[in-house]
């Protein structure tokens, strides 16, 4: 950084801006580095959720295929309830030959997932619902594992990652240097090696990181929840375009089974006329099969007299997302929704979410995102290494404050815009700005100035 030591006037202005951006890149990195590593590890694993659960819980999810004939869904349900007394709330038929059926039963100890062989009706095993290895990884990814509030940290981290990419791109921008644009200079002993490794990897991965941060936002606690309400709040929570002319209960789709983001607040219709006897689960499953629901769909069972059978499936192929509610007495569909019924905004969001999950483009989707996760970890390591090599002994080594602080104004204006769109991120920016102000005001530049 000797070029910055005695610059001419225009060069000093440019140097000031460079310092300002560098300083914020440093702060952002310091804050979100641990989250980025944790998100990359858990996210990289969760891309392969089906593979992971199929392998880790193989003895629950698979059985030896004994014949082409399977017993009726009602028999599977009865067998599960014999082992786990309670109210059956959900039935997931085997997606393919050799898979077990899954019955979810509400008990006084919480919901239990019961895995039953569809060939002889034997229960293979029982575990608390949503405790498979992939569910645990998912909860680690969203930080819900650590309680309802921890996930707000992810929302902040996502916002700061966008800031990291933007400031990182600015710092990467070629300024006449001979390397470190698309090539890596030096050896691991030298700081420039880590700086170039970080910058070049970031150039390739940056766009994907922004994509992941933005498409992850719909799940977030403040922004995601509010946008969801705003986008789907009217019309009983159904996306615009879906006609809703059947009686509605107060229960929401998300209460009974995992649903798509757009339908989290969609209310469940009621069976309009309580009849003498319900159709059997076998008849409901036959109806869903006839209507062409993709294999792997789940059937939520009616638990009240005006309840409905709800078949839902969110397969890798977005266009086959489907939710169908059946009148539990007549067996007629009350509401039948698919991806095509969502508005353009809903479709775009669902595409983003599905691609974030590594589903839209099959194996290529999984591999590309896994590579991005590995790139993020590599960049984090490189970032830590270059900071360590630059850092004055015993000090934090915050990049120096620009001499002309007016260059901050443009930067702050940009941050403010982002902060308004993502309020929780904005709030964290204000906190960080104040901290930075206090440190430079009262701490001076003595403790933090570097090179």
């Amino acid at each position, binding site marked *: 950084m000797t070029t910055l030591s005695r610059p001419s006037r225009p060069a000093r202005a440019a140097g000031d801006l460079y310092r300002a951006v560098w300083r914020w890149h440093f702060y952002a990195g310091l804050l979100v580095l641990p989250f980025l590593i944790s998100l990359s590890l858990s996210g990289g694993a969760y891309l392969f959720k089906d593979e992971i659960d199929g392998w880790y819980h193989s003895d629950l999810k698979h059985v030896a295929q004994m014949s082409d004939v399977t017993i009726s869904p009602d028999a*599977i349900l009865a067998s599960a309830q014999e082992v786990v007394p309670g109210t059956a709330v959900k039935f997931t038929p085997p997606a393919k030959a050799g898979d077990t059926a899954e019955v979810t039963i509400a008990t006084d100890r919480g919901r239990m997932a019961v895995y039953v062989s569809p060939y002889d009706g034997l229960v293979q095993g029982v575990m608390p619902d949503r405790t498979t290895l992939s569910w645990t990884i998912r909860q680690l990814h969203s930080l819900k594992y650590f309680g309802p509030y921890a996930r707000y940290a992810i929302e902040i981290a996502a916002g700061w990652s966008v800031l990291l990419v933007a400031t990182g791109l600015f710092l990467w921008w070629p300024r006449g240097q001979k390397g470190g644009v698309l090539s890596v200079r030096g050896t691991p002993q030298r700081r420039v090696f880590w700086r170039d490794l970080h910058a070049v990897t970031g150039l390739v991965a940056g766009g994907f990181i922004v994509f992941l941060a933005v498409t992850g936002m719909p799940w977030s606690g403040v922004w995601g929840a509010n946008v969801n309400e705003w986008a789907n709040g009217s019309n009983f929570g159904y996306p615009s375009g879906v006609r809703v002319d059947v009686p509605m209960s107060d229960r929401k789709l998300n209460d009974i089974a995992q649903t798509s983001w757009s339908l989290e607040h969609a209310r469940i219709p009621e069976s309009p006329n309580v009849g003498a006897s319900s159709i059997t689960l076998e008849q409901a499953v036959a109806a869903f099969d006839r209507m062409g629901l993709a294999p792997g769909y789940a059937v939520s069972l009616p638990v009240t007299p005006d309840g409905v059978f709800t078949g839902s499936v969110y397969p890798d192929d977005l266009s086959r997302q489907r939710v169908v509610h059946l009148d539990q007495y007549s067996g007629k569909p009350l509401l039948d929704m698919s991806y095509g019924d969502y508005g353009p905004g809903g479709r775009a969001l669902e595409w983003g979410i599905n691609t974030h999950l590594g589903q839209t483009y099959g194996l290529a989707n999984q591999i590309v995102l896994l590579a991005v996760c590995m790139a993020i970890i590599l960049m984090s390591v490189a970032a830590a290494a270059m900071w360590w090599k630059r850092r004055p002994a015993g000090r934090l080594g915050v990049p120096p404050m620009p001499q002309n602080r007016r260059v901050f104004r443009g930067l702050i204006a940009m941050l403010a815009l982002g902060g308004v769109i993502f309020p929780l991120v904005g709030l964290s920016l204000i906190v960080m700005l104040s901290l930075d102000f206090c440190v430079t005001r009262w701490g001076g530049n003595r403790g933090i100035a570097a090179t």
Partner: protein
Amino acid sequence: MQTHTISAILGALLLALPLGSQAQPVTQGDLTVSDGFMRAMPPNAPVAGGYLTITNNGTADDRLVSASSPEAGEVQVHEMTMNGDVMKMRELPDGLPIPAGQTVTLTPGGNHLMFLKVATPFTEGQTAHATLVFQNAGQLEVPLAVGPMNARKAGGRAPADPHAGH
């Protein structure tokens, strides 16, 4: 080990208590089989569990190798294992050991017999039959009284008060 002790105590209690209209104990060689029971099958149920108590009064270990029933196409000997919160049920390929001097209970939520391909669902009040095949003691015919759907033990009553026998 503790659960073994508790099962043994419970088994002994069950033996000691007069439990009314239930299947009589059956003895052959060193083995006594008692308190055989099942639960009435709910409509549509494809399989049913069978529960009983086996006491080995001898000095040699024995083993329940297999079972059959005229009322079921197949009877399997199943073990139940807990690993953390995950419960698994599997057929015991080598059967169930009945150690010398000990009592082994087959109970709901524990090891049990599994009746498959039951032609006519068992109903409360009926008596089912099983033929147990032991490595040493040979074949043994035992009756299993069919109790209500939620029966936890033979006679279909709530678990015995440990002080009831005093």
